């Protein structure tokens, strides 16, 4: 009997410990790399006796569906990510709590045209993020390639097979880059450019980090990334470099308190820590390489050499990027990209290759019909079969019904895409036959 009683006591004690543990833990959902999260975990756990932080690695692109899927009380406490669209969505679906009281007076509400904090105080800017192209210097030198300066240059045939990028359905960074191209160049031209870049890609990776990883390693030459992923590689001594590409967009990486948090006190303590001077200084660590939002840090002595200047960063912002537009079609753009590009990538690459080969043979004296056929094939390969208006009309219900609707829509897109590629191949073949007599 005493044994049973002891066992009972022990289990009650254990249970108590577990409950206490659950109360002191702050769960932060974030797509940021492990280096950054571990640095913050170490620093925060050290300076705060009452709370400890844990991270859920979460592609920012999926946070809204994840949170809507869960009842309050079963959600993470804090969301921390670069994607303004995700924060807009969270706010629209009423998934955030206001944290105006945590805003620091040293951090301005806006820099130039760029608003750093949410006007209603639902999320606060924590760092700055710009987007551009990262490249491996040795890889490009060994192949006599020059680094590109604009997104258009990435679509040039000379980069064929040397680019690596991720998919917007898995990576909120890529989503932002895709969306900024779509908004900067318009729906149809934007998609054409994106598809041309994708056709130049060696592979579409599953996670954001595989892009900088493969480039630092020199497996692939270049790719679109968010600045800090490139800078951390550069400051760690790898032969890589980075340039903001135009049209570019600078966004604040933000942090917000999730509605339905189990631990609001701890969550607020963590948010306050990330905005404090100590929290901001962590961003300058070489293995992190992020741009702090605290202006005074851009003047400190211990920042890495050739650290970007604040004025350069804010200047490169796309004048009319609208996060609301992006947020309204967030899942659809990602689904469209996957159906058009990710899941058809091998075919897209091989068709592009054939097209390029045929176009190279197209001399000045080539038959006019061949040129027309190739032109038509080019349009078919790089066009998106849906108009901007059609995408806006896909019903926005919730849950299973919505995913059913999207699945049906996707099947249509996929069929159309296959049809387009088949027709394009037919046209290229006809054109090649016409070209044959001329050597």
């Amino acid at each position, binding site marked *: 009997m005493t044994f049973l009683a002891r066992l009972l006591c022990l289990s009650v004690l254990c*249970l108590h410990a*577990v409950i206490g543990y*659950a109360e002191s833990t702050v*769960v932060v959902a974030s797509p940021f*790399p*492990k*280096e950054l999260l571990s640095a913050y975990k170490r620093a925060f756990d050290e300076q705060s006796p009452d709370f400890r932080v*844990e*991270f*859920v690695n979460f592609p920012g*692109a999926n946070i809204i*569906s*994840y949170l*809507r*899927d*869960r*009842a309050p*009380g*079963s959600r993470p406490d804090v969301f921390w990510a670069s994607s303004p669209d995700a924060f807009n969505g969270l706010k629209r679906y009423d998934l955030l709590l206001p944290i105006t009281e945590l805003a620091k007076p040293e951090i301005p509400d806006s820099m130039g045209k760029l608003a750093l904090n949410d006007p209603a105080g639902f999320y606060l800017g924590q760092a700055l993020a710009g987007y551009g192209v990262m490249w*491996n210097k*040795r*890889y490009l030198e060994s192949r006599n390639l020059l680094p590109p300066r604009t997104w258009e240059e990435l679509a040039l045939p000379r980069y064929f097979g040397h680019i690596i990028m991720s998919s917007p*359905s*898995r990576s909120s960074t890529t989503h932002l880059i895709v969306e900024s191209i779509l908004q900067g160049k318009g729906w149809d031209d934007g998609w054409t450019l994106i598809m041309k870049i994708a056709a130049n890609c*060696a*592979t*579409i*990776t*599953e996670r954001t*980090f*595989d892009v900088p*990883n*493969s480039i*630092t*390693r*020199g*497996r692939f030459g270049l790719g679109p990334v968010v600045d800090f*992923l490139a800078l*951390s*590689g550069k400051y760690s*001594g*790898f032969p890589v470099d980075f340039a903001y590409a135009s049209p570019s967009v600078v966004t604040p990486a933000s942090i917000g308190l999730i509605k339905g948090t189990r631990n609001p006190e701890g969550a607020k303590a963590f948010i306050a820590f990330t905005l404090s001077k100590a929290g901001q200084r962590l961003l300058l660590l070489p293995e992190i390489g992020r741009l702090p939002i605290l202006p005074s840090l851009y003047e400190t002595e211990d920042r890495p050499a050739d650290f970007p200047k604040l004025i350069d960063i804010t200047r490169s912002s796309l004048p009319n990027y609208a996060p609301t537009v992006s947020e309204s079609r967030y899942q659809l753009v*990602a*689904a469209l990209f*996957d*159906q058009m590009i990710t*899941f058809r*990538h*091998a075919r897209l690459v091989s068709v592009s290759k054939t097209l390029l080969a045929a176009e190279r043979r197209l001399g000045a004296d080539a038959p006019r019909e061949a040129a027309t056929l190739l032109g038509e094939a080019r349009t078919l390969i790089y066009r998106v079969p849906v108009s901007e208006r059609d995408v806006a009309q896909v019903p926005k219900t919730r*849950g*299973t*019904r919505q*995913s*059913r609707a999207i*699945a049906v829509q*996707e*099947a249509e897109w*996929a*069929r159309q895409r*296959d049809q387009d590629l088949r027709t394009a191949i037919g046209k290229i073949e006809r054109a090649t036959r016409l070209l044959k007599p001329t050597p």
Partner: protein
Amino acid sequence: MTLPATARYRSLGAWLMPGFLALFLLAFFFFPIGGMLIGCFTNDGSALGTTSIAQHMGHPLYLESLTNSIAVALSAAILAAGFALPVALILWRFRLHPPLILELCGFLPLFIPPFMLSLSLQSLLGRGGALGLLVAPIDLDPTLWGLSGVILIEAIHYFPLVLITLLLSTSAFARQADEAARLGNSWWRLTTRVFLPLGWPGLAFGMAITFLKTLDDLATPLSLGITNLLAPQAYFRVFSYGSQDPLSSLMAVSMMVISAFVWILSIVFVRQGSTWYSTTMSHGERTDGQRRHVAFALLAAIVLFYLLCYSGMLLTSVAGIWSHSVLPESFTFDHYLSALETETVSFANTLIYCGIAAGIDVLIGTAMANAIRKSPTRWGKHLTWLAIGLLSVPGVALAIAYLQFFHGMRLPILDLPLDSTGFLLPMAFAIRGLPFALRACTFARHSLPDAYVEAADLSGASRTAIFFRIVLPTMAFGLLMAFVISFGIAAVDLSSAMLLVPSETDAPVSYTIYLNTQTSTGRGTGSALAILAIGFISVVIVAAVALIRRRRRPVSGLKRALFLGNPIR
């Protein structure tokens, strides 16, 4: 008639374990899987029907993934068998049984996730360094191989397993075959008449495991950027649209149906091969020197090949700066330090999750083994097939079924949502490891003669005494083996882990390796962790060898524990 108190107590005890067993299987297998099946056959208006499923079946991507998945898994199994058959034939022909330690290494593919090979080959053959840069104009990067990359990597990974199952099932008549050959029978005749029929069960088993594991593999295709397979598609959809997405359920169900079909097919083959002959050949049996050397050279070549394959990972784990150069510019042990410093928690998690899963497996496995032993033959058979059938449930499918079924449920007292705790992970692991554990437990139960227990009972020993003095010591080795096997299988089960892991700090080591190889500044820490994990497994293997040697009943026990198709009775 009323039973005396002790008998009542005993009958209560006798019902307790089966009750627990039934409850566990209902809650963590039948209900979730059944729920998913019903969900699949539900139309929009929540009425049963096939309109919705028919609609999704026409999805071009679904059809493509389905055919790709079957093609890839089948090709990997055939390719692995193609590699293994000639090697096994040569070893059989030369009557060389690999040393015990190599034989145990043959089971390593079950305990190491195949994506490690993929990552290692990417470092080794990619454009960024090592061999890939040496042969520069030729592009060997595995990412560019497409589906054939997955096939090749899975085949290389599972080749040792197929080889060892083949060797175990053919080893019986090697000496007789040799003597027959001396008497003038041609080797071709012996191969077709003796070697192949003997090898069928082993081959079928090895190929079935390769097929099932390839079909279920999530991390390898993802690491190669391949998405048009069922497992990655289902995984993507769950993350984009939540666990209730109908298309991902359909994909999960399809995977289950294919697996079950292949599993039944392989069982037919295994059973056609009738019984397993117990090994008559002892280790290191003498054959003539010349032939021994050839066979040993072959084994050495295979070991070297695998060392080369994994050298990419080993180099990455000690590389400082390694970027577009044949060898790293600098070497460092920092990755190991940071792996030990920041990722020890993942080792602890692995111990907790897989330990719980293995514990459950041993408990349930023993209960089942006991029930099988005591029940009429027919029922025992059904129970065995039921447990073995669990093997055909892919991890991805099980995880999706869990996410759907336990959606919105909360843990009592703690008031935490079930799917945000690590609770579901050991349960999934336990279900996945149960068929293997059951074999080992049956073996353990077998080593306990009923007469001993009855004799002790009659002479008045208490149940506790019987348990601690007779049952536990005789069964200990088998149970330990069940625990280790179940633990190892759980530790590499990335397919369910990737979907069920609640947070990064709660991830078991295989998933942490996967995450760590995806940081922005190289794969150093992930590779270091992988090497540490492989080192740990090696230590376990060496310990197992020592233990088995001491017991002097080497192969038969291991063999009987691992071959699932052949019920031990």
